[in-house]
């Protein structure tokens, strides 16, 4: 098996949350992976501040030309779906089109949720395989009209979003980005940010 090189940058730059909103984000801000190997990203929730997450339905976007989605795994903070405490409603990405549906419904009582959840925790782990060289993004589809995360009472929680994950697919050792690669990355990042800004205004 080829060696996987994963570089984690755990610093979220320049983000400031809105009062009362919970934050959906990824544990990783960027990854450098080798072509052909598997890697994972963690979908996180934080800034709960006395609220609990009782259900969520989130779409994750990725570039299917550069990576393939191989599956997801839910954590047990909303309940253990294998023990009848929660229902895994995730559709995944059955067509491999680059949009992964991750959803879960808790069957726990609200006080059970409160006892199980901290201020922040991981909702799910998404697994990918690197297909081709290049740089691409994994991010939440903030434009998805079905995007929702609710509290223990079934009421929608106000949401904020962290930055997408930058994934640099390389061969051999991690390369120094070439100007063309940097340009491509910058263009992609700007486009992504512009889309998010536009949707937030809307």
């Amino acid at each position, binding site marked *: 098996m080829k060696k996987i090189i994963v570089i984690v940058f755990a610093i979220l730059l320049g983000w400031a949350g809105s009062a009362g909103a919970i934050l959906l984000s990824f544990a990783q801000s960027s990854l450098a992976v080798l072509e052909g190997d598997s890697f994972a990203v963690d979908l996180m929730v934080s800034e709960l501040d006395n609220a609990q997450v009782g259900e969520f339905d989130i779409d994750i976007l990725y570039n299917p030309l550069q990576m393939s989605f191989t599956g997801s795994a839910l954590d047990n903070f909303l309940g253990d779906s294998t023990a009848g405490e929660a*229902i895994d409603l995730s559709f995944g990405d059955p067509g491999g089109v680059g949009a992964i549906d991750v959803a879960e*419904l*808790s*069957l726990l*009582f609200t006080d059970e949720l409160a006892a199980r959840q901290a201020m922040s925790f991981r909702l799910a782990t998404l697994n990918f395989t690197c297909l081709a060289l290049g740089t691409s993004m994994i991010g939440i589809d903030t434009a998805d009209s*079905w995007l*929702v995360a*609710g509290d223990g*009472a079934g009421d929608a929680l106000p949401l904020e979003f962290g930055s997408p994950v930058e994934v640099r697919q390389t061969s051999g050792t991690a390369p120094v980005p070439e100007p063309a690669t940097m340009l491509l990355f910058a263009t992609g990042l700007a486009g992504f940010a512009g889309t998010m800004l536009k949707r937030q205004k809307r």
Partner: protein
Amino acid sequence: MTVKNNRAIGFLLCVLCVQIAFLVSAPRETHAAVVERVICVPWQGDVAKYHTTWDSHPIMLKCVVHTADTTQTWYKWNFGDGTESAVMSLSGQTKYSVETTHAYTGAQGTPFTAQLLVANNDVVSNPMTDSYLVKIEAADLDSKINVAIDNGLWYLYKSGSNTSTYYHTFDGSPFMVWSYSSYYASPTASAVQAFEINGHKETGNPNEDPYVEMVAHGLNWLFNGWFYNSAYAMLQPVTISTQHGDNPDSNGDGRGIEVRDYGYRPAYEGGMVMDAIIAAGTPNADSGRDFDGNGSTDTYREVVQNMIDMYAYGQYDSAYGSSGILGGWRYNWGDWPDNSACQWAAIGMIPAQHPPWNLTVPSWVKTYNNNWLNYSHQQWNWDGTQNLWGGFGYTGAGWGVALTPSGMVQLSFAGNTTTDPRWIRSERWLADNWATNTNFVNQNNVYAYYAFAKAMRLALPSPVTTFAANNFDWYRGDGITMGLAEKIADILVANSYWDYYGPILGTSWSVIILKPVLFAEAPIACFDTDPNPSYPDTTINFDPGCSGHSEAGKNIGNLIQFAWDWDNDGIYDTSTTAPDTVQHAFACASLPCTYPVQLRVTDDSDPARTATYVKNVVISNPPHPPVASLLGPYMVSYCTGDTLALDGSNSYDPNEGQHEQGCATCPNDTVTAWDWDLHGAPWNYTDGSGAVQNLGSDFASVFATAGAYNIGLQVTDNTLLAYPNSGQPNLTDQDFSVVNVYDGCLCEVTATPGCNYVHLAWDNIGADHYVVYRSTTGTDIGFEDTATTTENFKDLGSFVMGQTTYYRVMAVTGESRCLSKAIAVTAPPELCNPTADPKGPYQGCIGVPVTLDGSGSTAQTGTVITWEWDLDNDGEYDDAFGPTAQASWDAAGVYPVGLKVVSSDNLVLTDTGSTTATIRDCTQEKSCDVNGDGAVNILDINIINAARNTVNPALDMDGNGVVNVLDSRKCVLKCNKPRCAQ
């Protein structure tokens, strides 16, 4: 002769003159003994306690000097009142009992610190010294008792001997012997007991208390001593066996222990020896002898148990007609009993059964003893219905001044109470014949007095202090008829001893009788009154704060009851469990009146020990003297910035605002002068004036070195002008206190308060330990030892929020002490605020009550007592009340919810919290029983989930236009079973 020669001659003459002058004035040190120790006798074994005297009464000052050899040494007394003795010398020994008499003058409460100075030169320069504390008290019975005890113990101290060639111990260890005739055990035991119950224990510090060594060596004599040859041991084991089917061997070792001594009177001497051992208070101490032959030396407890076993074995125990088996003791074990010998068995075994000894006395011993008491009791003086009087005879029914109380103490030993007819008749005889007819109190029979005192102190169920028949206080008397205390105290004050069965036994028993507790140190009852004298029906303060305890390590904190008898009728009218100042007013139809007020204090011992003190309160016409009140003791350090202010402002005049009746021009009586004496005796009150002496940081110029300084305040009124026809001058009163000055260290203590506690921290200077002192009174006064630590910080509770508390820290290293500056700490009560927790956010429907829950609110101190809700966001918490509240809203929206909670114990504190209530229109909400089977369960949830992310009004539970996980979750909450099970 030339000028030059004249100068030379002049120089030589000068040198010669200097040499002559030196020879004349230089201290003589040739062949002088090196002074090793000077130890003055501390009152009740406590170097901080004052010996008692009264104004102008010559008392004896007593110290012991140890020298390295027998050559000459010199000493003198500094009496502490501005006078001193001539220089005197000692020689021929290495240990000297040095005494002198001196009369102090002054008001009640005046303290003096006398000193004995001893040096190896005849001008007593560079002396070794020790202090002898004296305080002038009222010239009353209590003072007389103290002086009598003081004198008696000193006499006993001087009477001990260890020089006879007939005295030996089995192991060669040191001993001390007191003797009478051919007896060396019981005189030693009684002397030791007299010392022990006055605070002089073998566990004390022999370098501070000369009696400690005497007690230790005396006890050793009892355990290990023998006279002439080892066949005459003070104690010896005896093989014992079953008697008439009764087993006397409670500990099963087959042995008892008897007092052998040179003269053989084991039943007499045994009880006294047992009492001396018991009064040591140390059951687990090592006697140094293996009496029971088990290969290891016996503890005091084991020795006393075997002495009990010996008494059980040696009791007369034969049936006698209808009397049953008679018990009792006589000269030899098993002899027909006599009531003289019997009492010693009782007095030895009674305390042995009490904590901490808890030893076993077979019940049959008491039963047989009681049979003997029935046999030897006599009754007479028929009043038509009953015999009023009774007593006990020597070897049969009869009566005697010593035998009757001897029988009474046996009654207590056998478990009989003061309701026993034999006791009632015997006590009645004593009551009726106290000072008339037989005239018991004037028999001058110390043996009878001791038997009587034992009987009264050991009566059941509680000690007898006044006779039931006439309420006469047998100890104190009634002011007209003498009590036993005054009878004995008069002798010891005058002569220091009482020669009855020799001066040792007579004096020892006398001292023991004068103490309110026979076998242990007693508590000390004491109180101050002010004003006294006073007016009729005017409140008088009674402060028991000067009470304490004689036992080392115990103090006023060990006293659990303070009972007051306002008219000394033997009935205690009020009591407190703490040393609180209480008030009482006295009527007086015809002035003047005198009320003897009695305080009885009870300690926390098992069995409880008590002591009483009586002081006369005088109700009289004015003018009355003023009352001087000098706070303290004071505590100050040489830390930079530390200050000292002496406060006499609480002084007052009971005649304040009044003057002579009918004298229109007379000014009101009042305190006109406060005069201070900061240098101790002689007390001349010329060191300052004014109600407060604020010395500031200049106190060091008055108190230049670390130490304890006596200070005094004299206040003067204007009686001369206010009551011109009283014939009295301006009246005065004095009060005294102590300034304790310490070297400075840890000068900057830091304090961080929390809720009901304070965290103190200071520099670690490597002291053995640190003592934290706390005061709520001021920076210089009211400090009490509150904690000890080896760390350089301490968290202290009992911290009152909002009140200024003062702390000082003392560093203790060996005998060295230094003190911090005081730090004042005032913590805002808000540190103890409760926490308001309104929970939420809440969800609800229009018009449907929402239960708001504030029960999770918490209090740091006390409890939460009110919950007040603000539901209309007007800032007023007046819309609902209680830990939970119901609220409803008429329109959809998000509403702020406010909660204010109040906690209380000694503080009332508040906190507020807020949340929201989201109210929606629920009228259109759908039923979650979407499959219509009558239950909400996983089947319904699955249907909703299947329609997820579609538009389906039937499944859109929250009416937001789409079906999503929110709808599923809302129905999960409505499932009929956990986990939406079917």
